[in-house]
């Protein structure tokens, strides 16, 4: 069963979709979306994943952060700490709806980074699945700035700004226009200070890291994140799936391997405890 939900969040309301298994609920999961155009491109894969997990006994809540998607609020007024709090709020809501008091998080790209931090700060999350997490926010932000330059190039024949001028504006406290999204210097600071490897020692305790690429080796930094988690005493699995980076594509994309491997890991986690993740 799937239904639209509204989640009270202080003065704001978060919009979401709740997917509940028809039979026994073996676990629960909150899905954390990426930002900007990646949210749009990845939408359908996230829906497919939620439906698959729910059919497999895992209740899933997908939701929009404050100022994003259908949720209330203005994007420019929010940043990473607020969105981490949104994740916690969504989890509380899910607990109320399903009775599951132990839940997992699944995040994609920046959503994975937010999920990581939310789980790091709140030990009640039982597992954390990170699909191609943004490990170093500075590099990701640089990538997004380049995306803007390229879009300008396609629109005007030439890019009209440089990363240097955009960064200067941000450092001067001026917001920039990232292709229709108002990025404030606060958001810039919060994204660019993301460093999951530094935080991994006190990170979430049961983690699945997923590298998603059509080919090639696992990037060094993802392996380093795994090692940092293991050094901190966490249970960390790292897998690869040969799928295209769907968060960066437009049009129909299906990721059966990614969804099946993630489902398998969650099943294993559930069966290892011998009982649903609600104790």
């Amino acid at each position, binding site marked *: 069963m*799937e239904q*639209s*939900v*509204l989640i009270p969040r202080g003065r704001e*309301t978060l*919009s979401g*979709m709740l997917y509940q298994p028809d039979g026994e609920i073996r676990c629960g999961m909150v899905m954390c979306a990426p930002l900007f155009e990646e949210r*749009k491109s990845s*939408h*359908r894969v996230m*829906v497919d994943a939620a439906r698959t997990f729910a059919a497999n006994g895992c209740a899933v809540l997908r939701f929009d952060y404050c100022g*994003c*998607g*259908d949720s*209330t609020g203005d*994007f420019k007024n929010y940043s990473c700490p607020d969105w981490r709090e949104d994740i916690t709020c969504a989890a509380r809501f899910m607990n109320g709806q399903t009775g599951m008091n132990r839940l997992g998080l699944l995040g994609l790209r920046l959503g994975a980074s937010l999920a990581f931090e939310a789980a790091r700060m709140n030990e009640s999350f039982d597992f954390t699945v990170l699909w191609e997490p943004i490990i170093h926010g500075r590099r990701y932000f640089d990538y997004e700035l380049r995306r803007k330059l390229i*879009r300008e190039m*396609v*629109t*005007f024949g030439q890019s009209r700004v440089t990363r240097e001028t955009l960064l200067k504006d941000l450092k001067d406290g001026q917001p920039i*226009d990232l*292709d*229709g*999204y*108002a990025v404030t210097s606060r958001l810039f600071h919060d994204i660019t200070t993301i460093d999951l490897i530094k935080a991994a020692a006190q990170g979430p305790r049961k983690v699945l890291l997923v590298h998603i690429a*059509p080919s090639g080796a696992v990037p060094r930094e993802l392996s380093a994140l795994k090692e940092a988690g293991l050094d901190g005493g966490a249970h960390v699995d790292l897998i690869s799936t040969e799928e*295209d980076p769907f968060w960066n*594509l*437009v*049009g*129909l*994309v*299906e990721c*059966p391997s990614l969804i099946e491997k993630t489902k398998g890991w969650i099943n294993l986690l559930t069966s290892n405890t011998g009982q649903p993740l609600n104790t």
Partner: protein
Amino acid sequence: MEYPIHFKVNGQALYGIVHEPEPDRAGPLVVFLHGWAGSRLGPHRMFVHMARRLTTRGCVCLRFDFRGRGDSGGTTTDASIRSMIADATAALDFLLPQYPERQVILLAICSGCKVAIGAAATDARVGGLALWSPEPMGPMRNTSSKNRKSLDAMRTYGRKLLRLETWRKLLTFRVNVKMVKKAVGAREVAGQGEISDETLWLNQLHNFKGRMLCIHGTNDPETAASKAGYKSLCSRLGIPQEVHEITGANHSFYGLDWERKVIDLTDTWMVSM
């Protein structure tokens, strides 16, 4: 107030959001129609921003995801402009009984505009069309348009992306090959049958008795053909048309200033309806 809704088409649930004004405010009922690869949010949440503005004017707004898109049921490979028109009609069937006596406006972007035209041509309830970056339809299409992706590119692009089951269905002709070609791309690409459909809808638009707003970006490669085509169409059919160009804007108005201008112009036009 905003609240989630769903309605069914051929057994599939379509999800949306209704934006309701303060009580006793009596503006039009505006249904938002997203583009081929989009969702009810619109590009960079443009539909959300527009709907919230229009609600302050007393409009009731519905934003929903077409079948196979966004949160809605159905598969992307089964979608077509025809199915999207059916979805739009179903949206009106769902909403109008709750908000009777309101003028119906369809607000659309990109290929959603084709849906709007098709719906307006065949549904007498439609009283206005607000079209953002409308794409050339039927005889308006320019075969040398630089923006059309080659079917070859899309075929090879799609081969990797679809799961084996989908390809099995393709090979046994249980999936319309043209639909798959369309579905895998960012932009809908028409086969000859669809161009015929589009031509028919344009010809049937004499049934539409309302007004049309068209907003184009000057850096949208389709603007020249589209502007000329819709101007000629409205002139031929006697449809009052208002046209605006946003200087520098691309097809989906990827900029805060462009978005703001589109919203302001649409707001002003809506007030005049």
